């Protein structure tokens, strides 16, 4: 469904990704793990169009999307939950969700999407008029995910959803990911919390210093000795 082929990208003279290739099939949940500075966030930004790619190509459902700006890519059905949530702090929860439904196709379905998101995140419904910035970390993460879901995407990109959250909340977030998967979404998660993410995804890639070092099913990676030593501390 989503396919990257030898994608390179960077910031000015600093190159962050070196010839990354990956594929995601419809309905899959795929993880990207790796240390800080590996380029995981850069990868997300390239896919969602925030960052242009300097080399390589990207296709989604057969269409070439490499080089499209972010506000076009979302129209294709790829939604990005950014690192650190990036909510509009002074807007209310519901206003944040409304912004998520900005594209014309989403506006038409606003009411029903809103109901769906509120059914997934009942706590958000309780706080619908509250300023988003005043909520707890976990609630903000739910709001950020909800905002991305408002555009009724086919693929959800999640950038470090567990960052800065307490362990109990992290658990809730990943339970949520399972639930979203259950609703038929394809998910790509970038994570530092290797243990949790490998329990949720079907497959995963290991990204180190801008290149894919390993890939395989979640089970394979969990059993991989390098991963076990370096990332699981076993």
């Amino acid at each position, binding site marked *: 469904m989503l396919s990257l082929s030898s994608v390179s990208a960077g910031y000015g003279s600093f190159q962050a990704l070196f010839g990354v290739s990956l594929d995601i099939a419809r309905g899959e949940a795929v993880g990207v793990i790796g240390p800080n500075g590996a380029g995981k966030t850069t990868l997300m930004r390239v896919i969602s169009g*925030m960052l242009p790619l300097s080399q390589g190509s990207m296709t989604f459902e057969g269409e070439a999307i490499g080089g499209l700006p*972010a*506000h076009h890519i979302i129209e294709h059905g790829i939604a*990005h939950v950014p690192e650190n949530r990036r909510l509009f702090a002074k*807007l209310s929860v519901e*206003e944040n969700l*409304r912004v998520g439904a900005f594209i014309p196709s989403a506006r038409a379905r606003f009411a029903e999407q809103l109901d769906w998101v509120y059914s997934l995140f009942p706590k958000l419904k309780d706080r619908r008029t509250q300023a988003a910035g005043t909520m707890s970390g976990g609630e903000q993460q739910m709001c950020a995910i909800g905002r991305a879901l408002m555009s009724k995407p086919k693929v959800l990109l999640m950038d470090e959803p567990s960052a800065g959250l307490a362990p109990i909340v992290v658990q809730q977030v990943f339970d949520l990911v399972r639930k979203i998967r259950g609703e038929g979404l394809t998910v790509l998660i970038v994570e530092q919390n290797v243990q949790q993410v490998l329990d949720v995804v079907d497959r995963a890639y290991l990204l180190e210093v801008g290149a894919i070092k390993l890939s395989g099913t979640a089970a394979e990676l969990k059993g991989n000795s390098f991963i076990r030593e370096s990332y699981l501390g076993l």
Partner: protein
Amino acid sequence: MDLYLLEAIINGILLGGVLALLALGLNLIFGVIDVVWISYADIVMCGMYGVYFLYAQYHLPLPLAFLLAILGSACLGVLVHKLIIAPVLNAAPLNQLLATGGLLFFLQSFATLLFGTDFRNIGVRLPVLEVASMYLSFARLIAFGVALVGAFALYFFLKKTYVGTAIRAIAQDREIVGLMGIDQRRIYLVVSAIGGALAGLAACLLALQYDVHPFIGNTFGPVIFMICVLGGLGNMLGGFFAAFIISLIIAIGGYYWSTELSYVLAFTFFIVLMFIRPRGLFTP
């Protein structure tokens, strides 16, 4: 209370309405695009000339002249953004200020070139109402009313529409709005158009009361700046209320002394408040 003083106060509040419109426009543009249009008052000047020529020279009906002036000012706003602001969006703030400063210079000189330095009046004589032995200019009352309507319209637009909410969102986080399908550049153009339209609306209201000449922008431009800083740059609500506070000071000062000295008074008040609350009166 002295009746003349009351009259001055009311007139001050009425004028405040139009200044509030301009403060809203300037704050909107600054809040979203992060650039201060030093030449904003001169956009108003252009609008006033527009009204003058459409109505007094080409004899279009006044409402039509007003409408065209507002639309024209909106287009001017878009032009300003595309030609002057967009090239310096990523430059140092000083460059941005200088770019709009250069525009101020250009607009004033160009207007002098085209229209000369004569004062022109659109010649609309609206009645003066007598209310409880006070004389209130009908033009000023209308201006106040329309300004309030405009302010509320802006409020509803920003609160209730998708584009309006997007505008408020982009003011808080410019970078990620693209992820929600919002085209940043297009929003900037919309905001510039709205800013221009607000200037155009103010121009229509001011044209009813004052003569236009190329340098009229210098008379209320600095006042608008004081208002916006006092209310907190980018704070729409703050600017709205600060407009009335400053207008009151100018009106009361003008009553006791002269108009120019009332500006000095307003500025002194402004400086003193800068000591106490440098981020603006209403900034939390």
